[in-house]
């Protein structure tokens, strides 16, 4: 095996150890603990409150849209922060590039807005 791949051997060992440890702990716990199943114990845990309705209930699609919009602008921020820390270094080229990026995103926002996606009906 080459040197290059040998470096990864650590990762393999680490992974094996993790699996072994987890298996050991769960196994010992299963062997030691008493097993008395009851109906209450099988209910899904929802912050100490009894669950209402089915697990497959439908949720408002608008939440989904907002979640998506949030992710998009979050990602935008992720790109903009590192750029902002080195804005002088990248100069005009960097500025224009970033402007193009923001304009593209804004276009998307304008589109979503005009299509009524931002309205909470």
């Amino acid at each position, binding site marked *: 095996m080459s040197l290059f791949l040998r470096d990864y051997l650590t990762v393999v060992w680490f992974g094996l150890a993790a699996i072994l440890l987890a298996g050991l702990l769960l196994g010992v716990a299963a062997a030691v603990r008493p097993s008395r199943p009851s109906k209450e114990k099988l209910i899904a845990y929802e912050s100490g409150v009894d669950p209402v309705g089915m697990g497959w209930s439908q949720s408002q699609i608008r939440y989904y849209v907002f979640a998506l919009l949030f992710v998009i602008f979050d990602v935008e921020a992720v790109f903009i922060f590192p750029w902002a820390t080195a804005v002088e*270094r*990248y100069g005009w080229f960097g500025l224009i590039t970033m402007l193009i990026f923001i304009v593209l995103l804004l276009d998307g926002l304008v589109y979503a807005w005009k299509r009524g996606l931002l309205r909470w009906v």
Partner: protein
Amino acid sequence: MLAQDDFFLAPGIEWFHLGPVIALVSGALVLLVVGALTPRWPRGLYAYVTALTAAVAGGLAVFNWNDITDDGVSTLVGGALAFDTFAQMITITVCAATLLVALVTDDELRRAGKDGPEVYALFLIAATGAVVMGSANDLILLFLGLETLSLALYVLAASDRERPTSQEAGIKYFVLGGFASAFFLYGIALIYGGTQSTNIGEIIGSFQTSVLLDGKDTLVLAGIALLIVGLGFKVAAVPFHMWTPDVYQGAPTNVTAFMASVGKAGAFAAMLRVLVIALPFHRDDWRPAIWVLAVLSLVIGSVLAVVQTDVKRMLAYSSISHAGFILVGVEAAGHNAGELAPGDGMPSVLTYLLLYSVLTVGSFAVVSLVARNNGGDTSLDAFKGLAQRRPTIALALTVFLLAQAGVPLTSGFIAKWGVIQAAVEEESYAIAIIAMVAAVVAAFLYLRIMVSTWLETGAESTEREAVPFSTGVAVFSAAAFTLLIGVWPGWLLDAAESVTTYAK
């Protein structure tokens, strides 16, 4: 303020040479933003803007081509994009297909009362992705192009919101396509691990300058395997073809046409970039894999096509068999990849892509005409008696089908001849014969459609298909192109010859 320091050198941006991409992106943006800000545009204006955009982008690619013939090949934006005739040829193919599809889509959407800018914007975005795949000189950029194309296609496949099959197609394509993209990306990562770069020029350089250690070579080989899986999925080669029939059948017909033309062109361009241009030093490793993929696609695509009863599904399987043909060309290109005399493999593949794109859009355009008349039915029965109702359309369909079967004096013959000739030149006789026999099997499929069209009479009550102007123009020009190339292919072959000089 804003002074540049020495650590960062901004890459030069050759705006004019980026023209096709810029044109496509701006077209998409105009459609989206202006389309959203203004009330509904009148009478197919969305389609005409799209067609115009595609035409402008294609025209700019022709200008670029002339620059390349004058000044030679180069790279753009700091080596990220290749500026060569290969890229321009793919651009022209993609733009031509987009133009035709836009014309076909117009009527399809308006008739259903669903006209709007979204579908067209997605077409243009997908086309941008395909163009970037064709001109990428960096694997990361290539992946970006692939994702741009794929994401747009996922949405397009599901764009008919009233039909559950369309939704199903979208989801299927999305899940499996995402899976394939992951393979592809992992392949890139491994190649990077093995060669220390994602830039195609530097990848080649790493093979030329250094003697590889075993382990790195293992990484590169594993990377190649994963790349082939990812690309095999995108080009719909057997055994990565499972999604094709369902998605092709479920997606709206105009989108299917787009997938079969632009999607394929982009994916094969990527395949050539990655395998033939970036990894010629491993050509003896990847060529057998391509050989197997080609043979499987040819045989299974043709045989399964024959037993279908739905025309869209038939054409889906036939597209798999066509992918097999194109792979024959890729295999041929693999024999001399990276050498000074690279053979006819690459030109033949690019010629095939261009000709097949036009053919397949034409075929699907006719299918969409017939389907609309029969309430969305695309089974063989719907085609019965088409020759009595619409002889001209039936004739155009026949031209497309004969061309797909590879009958002489059509462009399909020139395309097939090209790849088979490339294979025979490299003495790959076995694959050439398998390909030709598969073509005969596939011919049976095209005959079945022709039998329905010409020789069987349909129900008396069926109305004549309405042929709207824009679709008629698309069908007619595609048929004319098919025949023109069949009789006078010299100029195209001449142009295709030059793609073997590529930038890196």
